C-alpha cells in the first residue's frame, strides 16, 4: 500500500491524471482488502474464544466479502451487459451508472476510455474473431464516429446511427429500459431508483418527486414523448444506415470513417 501511495503521488506530480485515478482505485481496493483481512482475523479470534460458534463467518463479514468475489467479468463484458440493458448507444458515464445500479462489481470509468480503440485494434487484427465488439455509434450525416458513445456491433446498423433527434430518442429508450428493469426486479436498490429519477426528472409528466415516482408511470411518459419523435428519427436512421452499408467497408461500418485524413492539410494551411 505504501508503494501504491508513492506511485499515486508520482503520477499526480507527473500530471498523468488517468494513471493516478487508476492507481487510486487500486489503492482503495488494497485498503478495502486490508480492512477485510483485519475483520476476518478479529472474527476468527472471536470464534476461537467462543467454543460453540458454528458459523465460520458472521453475516456482516459475509456481506463484506461479497464485493470482492464480484469482479470476475472483464470490462468489455460488463459494458456489454449494461449496453444490452439500455438497448441504445450510451456514454461511458451512463454505462457506469447503469452497471452500478443493476450489476455486481465496480466499473471504473477511466478503463472505458481506451475500450473502443482496443476493440478496433482487435477487429482489424482478426476480423470477426469475437462474438461481438464494442464499437462506435455513427453520425447520420458524415458516418463518422459519434463522440463519446459506445454501441454493440451485433445491433442492427440503424440503431447505431445518431441523427439529430437520436440523442433524445436514445435517452427515452434508455429511460424505458431502466424503468422496465426496475419493474422486473421488484425491490430495487437505491442506486437503481436514483438512476431512474435522473431520467424521470427530465421527462415531462414522468414523476413529481423521487419518492412518489413509479417505474410504470415513467415508462408510460417516456413512451408518450418517444411516439412524438420516433417516426422522424427512424426515417433519418434508416436512410443513413442504408448509406453506411453501401459506402463503408467492414471496419468503417463498426468504427466509423472520419475526415481525420484531411486534418494535417487543414492545420498546416
Amino acid at each position, binding site marked *: 500500500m505504501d508503494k501504491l501511495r508513492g506511485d499515486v503521488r508520482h503520477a499526480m506530480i507527473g500530471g498523468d491524471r488517468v494513471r493516478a485515478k487508476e492507481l487510486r482505485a487500486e489503492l482503495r481496493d488494497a485498503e478495502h482488502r486490508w480492512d477485510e483481512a483485519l475483520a476476518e482475523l478479529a472474527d476468527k479470534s472471536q470464534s476461537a474464544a467462543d467454543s460453540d460458534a458454528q458459523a465460520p463467518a458472521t453475516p456482516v463479514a459475509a456481506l463484506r466479502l461479497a464485493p470482492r468475489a464480484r469482479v470476475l467479468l472483464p470490462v468489455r463484458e460488463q459494458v456489454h451487459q449494461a449496453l444490452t440493458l439500455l438497448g441504445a448507444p450510451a456514454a461511458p458515464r451512463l454505462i457506469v451508472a447503469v452497471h452500478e445500479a443493476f450489476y455486481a462489481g465496480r466499473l471504473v470509468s477511466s478503463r472505458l476510455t481506451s475500450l473502443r480503440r482496443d476493440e478496433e485494434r482487435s477487429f482489424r487484427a482478426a476480423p470477426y474473431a469475437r462474438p461481438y465488439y464494442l464499437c462506435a455509434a455513427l453520425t447520420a450525416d458524415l458516418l463518422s464516429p459519434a463522440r463519446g458513445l459506445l454501441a454493440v456491433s451485433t445491433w442492427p446498423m440503424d440503431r447505431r446511427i445518431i441523427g439529430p433527434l437520436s440523442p*433524445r430518442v436514445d435517452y427515452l429508450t434508455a429511460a424505458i429500459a431502466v424503468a422496465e428493469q426496475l419493474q422486473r426486479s421488484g425491490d430495487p436498490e437505491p442506486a437503481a431508483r436514483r438512476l431512474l429519477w435522473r431520467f424521470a426528472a427530465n421527462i415531462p409528466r414522468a414523476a413529481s418527486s423521487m419518492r412518489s415516482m413509479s417505474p410504470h408511470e415513467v415508462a408510460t411518459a417516456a413512451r408518450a414523448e418517444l411516439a412524438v*419523435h420516433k417516426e422522424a428519427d427512424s426515417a433519418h436512421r434508416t436512410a443513413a444506415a442504408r448509406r453506411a452499408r453501401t459506402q463503408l467497408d467492414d471496419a468503417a461500418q463498426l468504427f466509423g470513417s472520419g475526415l*481525420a485524413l484531411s486534418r494535417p492539410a487543414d492545420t498546416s494551411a
Partner: protein
Amino acid sequence: MNDLEARLDRIRGNVAPRNHNARTVAALTSNPGCARRAIMDAAGVDKQLLASCAGFAAQFGQSQFAIGRGNAFEAQVKAGGCAELLRLLREHLQLSIPEVSYDNLDEVGGNTCREVRYARTRALLARAARSDQDAGTLFDHPLLRLQVGGRPVYLEPDLIAFQLRNRFYVVEIKSFSVIDGLADGEKVAAAVIQSAVYVLALRDLLADLGFGADSVADNVVLVCPENFSNQPTAALLDVRKQLTVLQRQLARLERIGSLVDLLPPALTFDPRLDEYGLPHRPVSELISDVRTVQARYAPQCLASCEMCFFCRDEARGTTAALGREVRDELGAVELVQVALRLADGTLTGADDQAEAAAMLRAAARLRSECLDGAA
C-alpha cells in the same frame, strides 16, 4: 488602412499576434478610457509576455479548478442529448415537445479545425433559419466569427437554441451558483457581457446570410447551478445595453488610427526575443515606451488586464489608484499628496480644485472632530 496595419505590426514587434476570445472582447468594455489597452489589443500585443518582460509578471487566467468545475457542470447539463437543458428550455422558453434536435459542432467527422467547424456551423444555422419546419434546435459548441479591429476572431458559445418563433437564443452555461434566486453580481455581469459578444457574432453571421438582427433574441439564457446543489436552473437576461456598449467599443477599435497617430513613430513594444524566447531589450527602454501611451488605471483592472501590476505601480500615489469613485469625486486633484495638503489647508489649490478642496477640508474637519470625541 495598410499603413495602419504596418504601424500596428511595428508596435507589436516580432511576436505572434494574440487572438481575441470572448473574454478579452468582453474585457474591452470594462475600461473604455484606457488608451494603452486599446492600442495593445488592436495591435494584438501579448500583454502577459510584455508585463513579464517589464518585470511585472501577473499570474493571469482562470484557475484549473474553476475550469474543471465549469466543464463538469456543462457536461452534466448536456448529458443525454441535453436532457436537463431541454427541461429548462421547455419551462423558460416554452420550447415545444417535438423540438429536441441536437447537433454537436465540437468536431466535424473527427476534424476539429476552426475553418471547417465554422463552415459547418454556418451551413447548419442557415438551414435552420431558412427551413419552415424543424431543422435543428440545439447547436452544441458552434463556432462563430467576429471582426475585431479588422481581424477575424473565432468565438465558441456553449450552445445556441433555436425556437419555432424564428429566433435564435444564445445559451450560456456557467458554474457559479444562484442562491435563493440571487447570484454574484460581478459574475453575472461578466457572463452577460460575454453572451452579448456571442449574440453580436451570431447576428453578424445571420446578417451575412441575409437575416435581420431580430432573428437573434436580445435575451440570453443563463444556466447555473441552483442553491448548493448541482441541479441546474435557468434565467433569461436582457443584453441590449451590453450590446450597444460592445458595438461602441468595437467601432472605436476600428478607429484606432486616430489614437496611433498621436504616438511617436519609433514607438514599439517589441521585447526583442531571441530564438530561446529570452528578451534582449533593455527593460528601462521598454518601460519608457510603454509609459508613452497613457493608461487609465482603476483597481478593477486587476481582474481583467494582464498589464495591471505595471499600471498599478505607475499609478501609485495618484487618486485613481484608490478607485473610480475617489477619482470622480476629487475631479482635478490627481495626486494623493495634493489631496492631503488641500485637506489640511497648507495648499489653497487652483480654481478648478476649489470644489474638491472644500469637500476635503470638510472631511478633514469631520475626521478630527470624530477623533477628538473618541479620545
